[in-house]
């Protein structure tokens, strides 16, 4: 019954009531009449679906949301509370800053008050200058019986009548890692709610290659560079790590006595699992978005070509057949039916795309030296490293570019910062992680997909980063 009553409830954004008024009223009258008949006649309640109308439009201002992250209120006298609170506050602040969709109010501009509950929140204090926040994240943090309890709230400072957007409670062990994790989760929830339904990336990982003496091992770190730790201990040269879509396996290429071979490391078993050895050099694996296939470059037939096998290395088949090296395949994560790769069939390596059955080949770059493509999660863009004027004495260098697949138009994201290579998209499509520098001096950097907010993530060397799928 209450659905029936709410069915005629039409809502408009304040922006523009003026022009459609008459039309909407007449359209609203029809369901209203039907509703009255239903109510008066039978008192049955057929499931008329509840519905609300929103009226909005473009050119009405779409700017980044200005959000303030209040310091959380400590609500226990435990000695652990203060350090955990400071970890939580700083992590939440940096997560919101890194999200790319917010204009985060500086800590020096926010009010001194630390509201812990909605009743303690004076929203006018936050919406007024100098904070001028449109959204406020706040809450309380306490340590009870060696477990950490965080109550987080998100308030809409522009909506005095119904300010609450989110209310979340998290409980975990009372340690630094858990405090960071809770902050990541809360930040992800905020980003998910305010960022148009795209899940946040604060809980994602980055896998990268770290040189150690003459060896290279695969390492893992959080998306913000925290908590770096090694994954492999093979004592060899392992390159191009690629994490599977379900975060359970890590494929990479390792130099062993058979040359470069694809290796598979299970993150569930914490050991290397079997992957068949093929002749020649096997490089640059790439997971299909459903996790059932692995594409890689193999020279088992004499010429480096793209091969596709299942996740266990069986049923391998060849996709490309032109003379010249074909390397660095990457699936279109949106469809799984297309693939971008680098081919040297016309001389210098260029960026190509094709269907996964080898048909529909298109060349994307018109010259220079292209390498290491990465297809964006929404399927619209390919990021790749490109040296547009390749050759001795040519101006410019190797930089990160993003190309729109449909139009082949590109933009350059890095400038004058040394050689940049190995871009990898974040799962939300808003960030790109890449390597800057060569050899042992290379570092893993991250930036927004428009080239802003560049900052370094690794502090002790890192190369060939790969962002996890979720």
């Amino acid at each position: 019954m209450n659905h029936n009553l709410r069915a005629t409830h039409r809502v408009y954004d304040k922006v523009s009531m003026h022009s459609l008024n008459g039309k909407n009223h007449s359209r609203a009258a029809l369901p209203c009449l039907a509703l009255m008949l239903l109510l008066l006649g039978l008192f049955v309640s057929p499931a008329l679906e509840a519905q609300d109308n929103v009226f909005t439009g473009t050119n009405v201002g779409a700017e980044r949301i200005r959000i303030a992250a209040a310091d959380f209120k400590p609500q226990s006298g435990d000695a652990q509370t203060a350090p955990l609170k400071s970890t939580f506050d700083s992590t939440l602040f940096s997560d919101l800053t890194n999200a790319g969709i917010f204009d985060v109010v500086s800590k020096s501009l926010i009010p001194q008050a630390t509201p812990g509950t909605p009743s303690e929140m004076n929203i006018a204090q936050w919406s007024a200058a100098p904070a001028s926040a449109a959204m406020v994240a706040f809450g309380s943090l306490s340590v009870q019986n060696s477990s950490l309890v965080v109550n987080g709230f998100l308030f809409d400072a522009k909506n005095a009548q119904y300010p609450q957007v989110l209310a979340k409670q998290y409980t975990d062990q009372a340690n630094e890692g858990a405090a960071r994790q809770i902050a990541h989760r809360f930040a992800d929830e905020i980003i998910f709610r305010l960022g148009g339904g795209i899940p946040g990336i604060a809980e994602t990982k980055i896998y990268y290659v770290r040189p150690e003496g003459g060896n290279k091992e695969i390492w893992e770190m959080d998306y913000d560079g925290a908590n770096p730790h090694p994954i492999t201990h093979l004592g060899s040269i392992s390159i191009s790590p690629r994490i599977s879509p379900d975060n359970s396996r890590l494929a990479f290429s390792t130099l062993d006595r058979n040359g470069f071979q694809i290796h598979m490391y299970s993150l569930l078993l914490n050991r290397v699992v079997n992957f068949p050895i093929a002749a020649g050099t096997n490089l640059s694996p790439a997971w299909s978005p459903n996790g059932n296939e692995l594409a890689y470059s193999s020279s088992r037939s004499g010429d480096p070509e793209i091969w596709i096998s299942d996740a266990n290395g069986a049923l391998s088949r060849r996709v490309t057949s032109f003379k010249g090296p074909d390397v660095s395949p990457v699936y279109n994560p949106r469809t799984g039916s297309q693939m971008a790769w680098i081919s040297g069939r016309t001389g210098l390596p260029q960026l190509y795309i094709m269907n996964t059955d080898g048909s529909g080949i298109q060349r994307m770059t018109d010259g220079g030296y292209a390498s290491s493509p990465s297809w964006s999660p929404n399927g619209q863009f390919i990021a790749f490293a490109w040296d547009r004027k390749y050759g001795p004495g040519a101006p410019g260098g190797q930089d990160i570019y993003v190309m729109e697949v449909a139009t082949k138009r590109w933009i350059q994201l890095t400038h004058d910062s040394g050689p940049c290579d190995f871009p990898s998209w974040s799962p939300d499509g808003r960030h790109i992680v890449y390597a800057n520098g060569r050899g042992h001096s290379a570092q893993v950097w991250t930036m927004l997909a428009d080239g802003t907010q560049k900052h370094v993530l690794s502090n002790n060397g890192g190369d060939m980063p790969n962002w996890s799928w979720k």
Partner: protein
Amino acid sequence: MLFHALIVGAIFGYAYYLRHQGNSWGNNAATTSAIQATMVNAIPLPPRQPVNADNVLTSETPSPAPPTAKEKLAPPPEPTAIPIPEKPKPVKVAPKPVQATPHPQPVPPQPQKATTGEATGVRIAMTSTQTRAGTVSIGATDAAFGARFAYYVAQIKQKVAAQWYTAMLDPAAKGHRVYIVFQISRDGTPSSIRIQQPSGDPTLDQTALSAVQHIDTFGPLPDGYNGNYITVVYYFDPPSGP
């Protein structure tokens, strides 16, 4: 004395004689005059209607009052109306066997929230209305979606505006605002995307339509919202020329 009485009697007798023999004014007896004249034109009064005595509305004689019912008197009470109490005889009752009281059964805990569906973080004020069929509870209908979930509307705005590619617009076209209507279901997926009111510029219409079609999700509808979908009317203004 007799003379006085004679004079008084003569005066009354003359008056009596005059009353019966003199001219009687205002008497409309048919015998007074042979000619009747009605001067309707001179006097500004409505003409009198002839009176029908049978008509109770026009009759001037009041109809007889209806007979009033006679008040009935209550019959006098019987002599035995009030019983005379007698002394009750003591009755010996055998004691009944005591029944065992049932052991208190544990009450299963009632769920605090719906067992299916997600728990809402926001409570909506409910209003209840009593009807003949029962109590009807409805969500606070004064809270319009755009006012209650302003952040979600802002997000729709931002998301569509970000997907609108104006490069394919015909700059010379004479267009005005185009209105696109679509629905957002519970999980945030847009559907039923159509043009409600074209702008007159086909390129504008097409780019506006594809802007919404490009979007996979707007994010799930807010937790506090109970409906299954919302209908969005979105307008695109052509960018102002240089």
